[in-house]
C-alpha cells in the first residue's frame, strides 16, 4: 500500500476518535454531578438527590412540553415549506432566484436572526412602528405578549426561518442523486401535476437522503439555547435554557440539579427523534395507498399557493429582520413610533471599528483552522470510501453527526472539566478543536453527496493512463470537486463563526470573537452595538460564500477547455 492509501485509510478512524472522545468525555462530565459527585463543591457521595430536586422544580412539565413541541413543530413546518416549495417551483424562475438567495440566508447566525426577528415583531418593533400611529392609533407601544409567548410561537417562527434555508440546501444537494429530474419527467408524462408528481414520485426517493439533516434540525431545535433565550417564553423557559440558567445560578448547589437536567435534555432530544421516527413509519404506512391512487391534480393549486406564500413569508421575515438590524446600527435616539431612525449616525460603527479588529481576527483564524481541519478529515473519509468502494457503515455515519444530535449544553460543561483535567491551556488550540467538532458534521453533510456522485469512470480513465491513486486524487478528483468543496467549506466557516459556548468555554474566555462580543453585548441593553456585531457576524460568512462561488472558477480557469 502506498503512503497515500495508508494515510487515507487512517482518516476515518482518526475522525471518529476526534468526535467520540470529546462528546463521551463531556457526557461523563455531567453524569457524575447528576448523581451527586463533584468534590470541588463538596459532592462526595453518590445520590439521587439531584434528580429528586429536578422532579420538584416548578414548571418542569411545561418546560418539557415546550422543548418537545417547539422542536417538533418547527422542524415539521420547515420540512413542509421546503417540500411544498420544491414541489411547486423546481426549476422555475422563482426557484433560481431563491437558490441564489440561499447562501447569504444560510450565513445568518441563529442569534442574529433571532435578535432581528424579536425586534421586527415586538410591540415596539418595526412592524408595529410601520402601522403606528396612523392605522393602529398607538402612540405608545401596545402590550401584547410576543415574542416570548407561552406557546412558543415566536420561538417556532425563529427556528423555521433558519431551518428552511438549511434543509433547502441539503435537498438541493440530494435531488440529482435521487434522479429527481428523471422521476419528474416520467410522472409529468403520465399527466401528474407539478406538485403531485414531486410528492408522489420524487419525495419517497428524496426523503431518505435528507433524513439525517432533518434529524440534526430536530436535535438543534429541541435543545437550542440562544434562540430560545431571545424568542422563547421565560416563565417557564425551555429545558435547555433552564439548564444554562441553573448552571449560571450563584447558588452553586443548583449545579447538581443542572447536570441532571442536562441529561434529561439528552432524553428529550432522543424522545423527539423517536417520535419523529415513529411518525415517519406511520406516514409511510398511511401514504402507501395515496401514492398509488392515481389522482394527478388534487390540491395542486392550494399547495402551490402555500409553497409560494410560506417561502416568500420566510424570506421576507428574514430580510426584514436583517433590515431592522441595519437600521438600528445606524440609529441615534429612535423612539416609538418613528419607523425610520432620524438622524442617522455612523457613531456606533465608528466605536465598533476601534475594538473590532481583534475579535475579527480571532473569528477568522478560528474559522479557517476549524474549517481546514474539518474539510481535510471529510475529504479523507470520503476518499477512503472511494478506495474501499463502499460507503461508511451506518453506525460510523451516525457518529459523524454525534455533535449535532447530542445537545451541546449536555456535554460542553463536561468537556471543560476534561480540558482542565488534562491540563490543556484554554485558548486558541482548544477552541479551534472545539469548533471543528461542530463544523465537521456540517461539512460532511454538505460534501458527501457530491463526492459520492462523482463518476468513478474518471478515476478509471486516469488509472488507465497510468496515474497513481494519489495523482488521480490530487489532479483529477479534487479539482473536479473544487466547487462543492468550496461550498462545504463556506458552510463550515459559517458554522464556526456562529459558535458561542465552545468559544467561551474552551477558549477560557480569552478569545473574543464577533459572536462572543455580540452575545455579551446582547446581555447589555445597547441594541445599536449589538446590531453592528450581529451584522459583522453575518458579513464574514457571507464573504466566505461569495469566495466559495468565485474562487474555484478563478483558480481552475486554465483547466477550462479553450473556446
Amino acid at each position: 500500500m502506498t503512503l497515500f492509501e495508508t494515510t487515507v485509510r487512517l482518516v476515518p478512524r482518526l475522525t471518529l476518535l476526534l468526535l467520540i472522545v470529546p462528546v463521551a468525555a463531556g457526557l461523563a462530565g455531567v453524569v457524575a454531578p447528576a448523581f451527586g459527585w463533584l468534590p470541588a463543591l463538596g459532592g462526595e457521595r453518590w445520590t439521587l438527590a439531584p434528580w429528586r430536586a429536578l422532579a420538584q422544580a416548578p414548571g418542569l412539565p411545561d418546560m418539557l412540553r415546550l422543548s418537545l413541541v417547539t422542536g417538533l413543530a418547527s422542524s415539521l413546518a420547515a420540512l413542509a415549506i421546503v417540500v411544498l416549495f420544491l414541489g411547486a417551483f423546481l426549476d422555475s424562475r422563482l426557484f433560481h432566484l431563491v437558490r441564489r438567495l440561499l447562501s447569504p440566508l444560510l450565513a445568518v447566525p441563529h442569534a442574529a436572526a433571532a435578535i432581528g426577528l424579536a425586534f421586527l415583531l415586538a410591540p415596539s418593533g418595526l412592524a408595529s412602528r410601520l402601522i403606528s400611529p396612523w392605522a393602529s392609533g398607538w402612540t405608545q407601544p401596545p402590550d401584547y405578549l410576543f415574542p416570548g409567548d407561552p406557546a412558543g410561537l415566536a420561538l417556532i417562527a425563529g427556528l423555521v426561518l433558519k431551518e428552511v434555508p438549511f434543509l433547502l440546501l441539503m435537498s438541493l444537494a440530494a435531488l440529482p442523486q435521487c434522479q429527481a429530474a428523471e422521476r419528474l419527467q416520467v410522472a409529468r408524462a403520465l399527466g401528474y401535476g407539478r406538485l403531485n408528481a414531486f410528492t408522489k414520485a420524487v419525495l419517497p426517493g428524496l426523503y431518505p437522503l435528507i433524513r439525517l439533516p432533518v434529524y440534526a434540525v430536530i436535535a438543534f431545535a429541541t435543545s437550542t439555547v440562544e434562540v430560545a433565550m431571545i424568542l422563547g417564553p421565560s416563565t417557564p423557559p425551555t429545558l435547555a435554557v433552564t439548564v444554562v440558567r441553573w448552571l449560571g445560578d450563584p447558588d452553586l448547589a443548583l449545579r447538581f440539579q443542572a447536570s441532571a437536567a442536562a441529561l434529561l435534555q439528552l432524553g428529550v432530544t432522543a424522545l423527539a427523534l423517536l417520535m419523529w421516527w415513529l411518525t415517519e413509519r406511520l406516514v409511510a404506512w398511511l401514504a402507501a395507498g395515496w401514492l398509488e391512487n392515481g389522482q394527478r391534480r388534487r390540491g395542486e393549486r392550494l399547495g402551490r399557493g402555500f409553497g409560494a406564500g410560506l417561502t416568500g413569508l420566510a424570506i421576507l421575515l428574514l430580510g426584514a429582520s436583517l433590515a431592522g438590524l441595519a437600521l438600528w446600527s445606524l440609529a441615534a435616539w429612535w423612539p416609538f413610533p418613528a419607523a425610520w431612525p432620524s438622524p442617522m449616525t455612523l457613531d456606533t460603527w465608528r466605536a465598533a471599528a476601534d475594538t473590532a479588529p481583534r475579535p475579527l481576527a480571532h473569528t477568522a483564524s478560528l474559522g479557517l483552522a476549524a474549517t481546514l481541519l474539518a474539510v481535510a478529515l471529510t475529504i479523507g473519509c470520503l476518499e477512503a470510501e472511494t478506495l474501499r468502494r463502499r460507503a461508511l457503515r451506518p453506525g460510523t455515519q451516525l457518529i459523524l453527526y454525534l455533535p449535532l444530535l447530542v445537545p451541546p449544553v449536555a456535554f460542553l460543561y463536561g468537556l471543560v472539566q476534561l480540558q482542565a483535567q488534562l491540563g490543556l491551556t484554554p485558548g486558541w488550540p482548544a477552541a479551534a478543536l472545539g469548533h471543528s467538532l461542530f463544523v465537521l458534521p456540517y461539512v460532511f453533510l454538505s460534501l458527501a453527496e457530491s463526492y459520492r456522485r462523482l463518476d468513478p469512470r474518471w478515476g478509471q480513465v486516469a488509472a488507465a493512463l497510468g496515474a497513481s491513486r494519489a495523482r488521480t486524487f490530487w489532479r483529477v478528483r479534487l479539482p473536479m470537486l473544487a466547487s462543492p468543496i468550496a461550498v462545504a467549506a463556506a458552510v463550515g466557516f459559517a458554522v464556526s463563526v456562529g459558535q458561542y459556548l465552545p468559544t467561551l468555554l474552551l477558549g477560557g474566555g480569552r478569545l473574543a470573537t464577533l459572536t462572543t462580543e455580540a452575545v455579551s453585548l446582547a446581555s447589555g441593553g445597547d441594541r445599536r452595538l449589538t446590531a453592528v456585531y450581529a451584522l459583522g457576524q453575518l458579513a464574514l460568512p457571507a464573504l466566505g460564500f461569495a469566495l466559495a462561488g468565485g474562487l474555484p472558477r478563478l483558480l481552475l480557469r486554465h483547466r477550462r477547455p479553450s473556446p
Partner: protein
Amino acid sequence: MPSRSPLRHAAHALLAPLLALTTLGTAMAEEAPLPEDWADIEALARGQTVYWNAWGGDAATNRYIDWAAGRLAEQFGVEVVHVKLDDTAAAVSRVIAEKSAGNVDDGAIDLVWINGENFAAMKRHDLLFGPFASRLPNLALTAPDEHPEVRTDFTLPTDGFEAPWGKAQLTFYYDADRVEAPPGGMIELLDWAQTHPGRFTYPLVPDFLGSTFLKQALIELVEDPSVLAEPTDGHDVEALTAPLWEFLDALHPYLWRRGRDFPASGPQLKRLMGDGELSLAFTFNPSEPAAAVAARQLPPSTRSYVLDGGTLGNVHFVAIPFNAAHKAGALVLANFLLSPEAQARKQDIDIWGDPTVLDMTKLTSEQRAAFDSEDDHPARLPPDAMGKLLPEPHPSWMEALEAGWRERYADDG
C-alpha cells in the same frame, strides 16, 4: 490608550495562536509565595498578563476597562486582558472545573468582578484567594474602619477576600413626558401600576436586580424590618413574607405583559424603557439613566429619583480566584482600580458614572478636585437627592424570597 494600528492588532491576534501552539505543554510554573513588600509585588507583576473576567454587556464599562488596561501597561508593565462575560457564572464554572481537576496554581482567571451572591458561594467553597485587600496600599483611601460597607458584601464580612471597586444604590427612573408623579414607595407603586397598566416590570428572579426589587419591597412591607438583619432561622418566614406575596399577587396583573413574561436582566429593562414599552424602571447604578440618555438609549425626558423611605445600596467588588496564575498582577490591578485617578475617571458621567468608594477626606485637595464635576445632566440624580441607604437583608432572606418566587410565579405562562 496607546494607539496601536488595527493592522498590528490583527497581526498580533493571528500570530498569538501560533505562539500558543508552540508553548503548549510547557511545564507549569512553580509558584513562589507572594512577597510581603508591596514594591516587590509590583516588581513581580511586571511582565505578567492579567486575565480579568468582567461582565461585558456595557460599552461604557468596557471602554473604561480598556483605559485601565492601557494605564496598567504604561505604569506597571502589566498587560490586562478583559475577558468579557455575559454572566459571571461562566467564570465561577471554570474555577470549579479547575479545582476539580486539581489545578491549584495555574488558573485561567486572575481577577473577577463579582456580585455578592457569587462571592458568598465562592467563599463558602474555598474558591477565592486571600485575604488580600489589606495588602493594597490604596485600600486606606476608602477608610474601611469608618465605612463598614466596603468590607461587607451582602451583610457578610468580606474578610479581605475582595477589594471594593464601586458603589451602587437602587435608583428609579421614569419618562417625565409620560409620568407626572412617579410613585414614592411600594404601595404607591401598586396604585400607579393600576392606572398605568403594562408600563412597569422587574427583571426575572433570580436576576440580581429582580431579587433586589423583591428585597426592597419586603423591607417596605414587613412590619419590623430589623428582623431582616438576622438569618431566617428562627423566624416565621411564611408569615413575615406573606405581605410581599399579597403585594405581588395584586401587582402582577398590571405589570408589563401582565407578569407572564419578564425581562432577563437590568439592561433589558433599560432597553424596554428605550423602546417606550415601559414608563418606569430602576437600576443599581445611580448614573446609568443619565449615561444612557447621553448614549441615546433612553428618552431625553428621563428623570431619576430614590424612593421616599430610602433604597437598598451596596458596594461592588473584585476578587482573585484561589488558583489565579498571576496573583501579583491581579493585586496591582486591584490596587490601581482604587487609585484616585481610576476612581475619579470611573465616576465621571461621560466615562462610566459609577460612584466612587473612596473617602474624600482621605484625599489631598488636588486629588479631590478630580472628582468635582460641573455636570448637571437633568436625567441624573443630584448627589444631595440620594436618599437614605437601606442595609441589605441577611442573604438567607434573598434565598427564601427567590425560592418563594420560583414556587409562585416561575410557572405562570
